[in-house]
């Protein structure tokens, strides 16, 4: 009898153990670490209270990083969520049905390519001498716009953000496609009888019907924007200077270059709080959205 009671726990135990050890325990530890000062190479930790956070709030690079993360969030919402939705609506429109399969596959391709491959490819795209972008601009007679996109502090972060959009629009688009396919056809037919055109059908049928996916997509995009690391790390390393630093690269540099593990943990705690806040706000909005 008692053995039968244990059986279900045995099935779940491996998952719980491995997640407890590698997902939950580090989160708790990170919170604790952010109140200490320590090095990766020594077991000694010094308790410093809120000093890491105080230093962080006085660090001007922190504000550059935060500002860049906010740019990331704003631009990603516009391009990935709104752009992805529009592309999905076009591909699900009956007039494009003969080609939509092809375009859908091509638009999704960047999602499955490793970010390292994409980032290295874009270091060619942005290359001041042979880059596609400058070549393209001179083709249009806009030579004076050409520049070293990743090398100048005004453009670096935006060049990096553009790469993320290039890669991820297809992903959000695919989520919206799945969601649009679930909309009952009768709604569109009813709208047509009322004389609605494509644009009005989009605004009055598609948009309200994909509302749930819209919130999911926003949540994914915002969380992604505040935890981004790969693209800035590979493309610019946060440079020139600290111009394209984001919280993720700041964390990495503090931990693995400056060996300030406590300081890095404090940054991680800030990232955790930001992402949890985003989730909470989203859930609240989503709930009110459902009631209304």
């Amino acid at each position, binding site marked *: 009898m008692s053995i039968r009671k244990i059986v*279900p726990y045995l099935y779940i135990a491996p998952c719980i153990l491995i*997640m407890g050890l590698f997902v939950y325990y580090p989160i708790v530890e990170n919170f604790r670490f952010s109140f200490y000062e320590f090095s990766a190479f020594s077991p000694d930790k010094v308790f410093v209270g809120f000093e890491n956070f105080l230093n962080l709030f006085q660090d001007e690079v922190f504000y550059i990083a935060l500002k860049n993360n906010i740019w990331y969030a704003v631009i990603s919402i516009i391009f990935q969520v709104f752009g992805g939705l529009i592309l999905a609506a076009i591909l699900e429109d009956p007039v494009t049905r003969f080609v939509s399969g092809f375009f859908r596959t091509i638009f999704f391709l960047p999602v499955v390519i490793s970010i390292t491959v994409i980032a290295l490819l874009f270091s060619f795209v942005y290359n001041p001498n042979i880059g596609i972008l400058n070549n393209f601009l001179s083709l249009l007679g806009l030579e004076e716009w050409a520049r070293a996109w990743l090398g100048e502090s005004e453009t670096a972060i935006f060049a990096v953000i553009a790469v993320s959009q290039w890669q991820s629009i297809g992903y959000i688009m695919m989520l919206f496609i799945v969601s649009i396919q679930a909309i009952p056809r009768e709604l569109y037919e009813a709208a047509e009888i009322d004389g609605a055109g494509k644009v009005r059908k989009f605004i009055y049928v598609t948009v309200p019907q994909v509302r749930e996916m819209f919130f999911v997509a926003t949540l994914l995009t915002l969380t992604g924007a505040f935890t981004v690391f790969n693209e800035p790390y590979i493309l610019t390393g946060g440079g020139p200077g600290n111009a394209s630093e984001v919280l*993720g690269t700041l964390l990495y540099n503090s931990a693995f270059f400056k060996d300030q593990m406590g300081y890095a943990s404090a940054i*991680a705690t800030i990232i955790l709080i930001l992402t949890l806040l985003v989730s909470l706000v989203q859930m609240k909005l989503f709930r009110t959205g459902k009631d209304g």
Partner: protein
Amino acid sequence: METDKATVKYEYNPGTRKLFKQKAILGSVPLYTILLFYFIIIAYPLFWMIINSFKTTEEIFSNSWALPQSWLVSNYVHAWNTGISGYFFNSALVTVSTCLGTVFLSALGAYGLTRFNFKGKNLLLIFCMGGMMLSPQVSLVPLYKLIQVLGIHDTYLALILPYIAYRIPITILLIRAAFLEVPKELEESAFLDGCNTWSVFTKIFIPLNLPILLTGVVLTAYFTWNEFMFALIFIDSEALKTIPAGLMQFRDALQTNWGVLLAGLMISATPIIILFLFMQKYFIRGLASGSVKG
């Protein structure tokens, strides 16, 4: 084309069908323009990568827009021998292990969570799902420490174990939804035949849900093959690096040999693109159902 009528609302009467058609075609021009424009943005860099991966560096410099004068397959051989083969092997090994581990453990967990009633079931479910809210970036420092304490730093396990842990929530979610659909009667008759819970799991639940398990494998493979941050930090030895982290080394080693570098990028991207093209259905189902409920 019954739905195209909608583009021209005022002419809505059967007498003007021809006009409809013309207006409908006209109305679809902006849509096709947008598609074509975005197609160029996506396809052109990829096309550029393909053609230039067959050129010499001089040719890339002098004319990166044209097709190669002669197609240098040797770039691929060179890239393969300059380290890509090793990274490729490591990536394959880590990906296969992670996929098997993740899907097997998640299936076990999903079975426990769906076919039994016991104390704390909901709590354990929340525990498993909650992992989806947490980003790996946030645990980087403690994970690094933990991996050193466990003595697995700079081994394959330093990647495989965290990957499995971070992939379990989404995979368990997928598999649980499928397991909930399995009719109770199947199970009950198996128990009457003298099966225990383990043989019900291996003889009924696994074979019956192969498609969803495959979806889990495809999604895990996609994540693992492309993961960069852990691969960069938890592995130091050149010989153990997976493709995403290895490519950084590869770039530094090849500084100016761009044709070979691009060939390396091509080799790295191809397996997962092929996997996607052949398994598109499983892939999209997984992405969609995972995000809706996440």
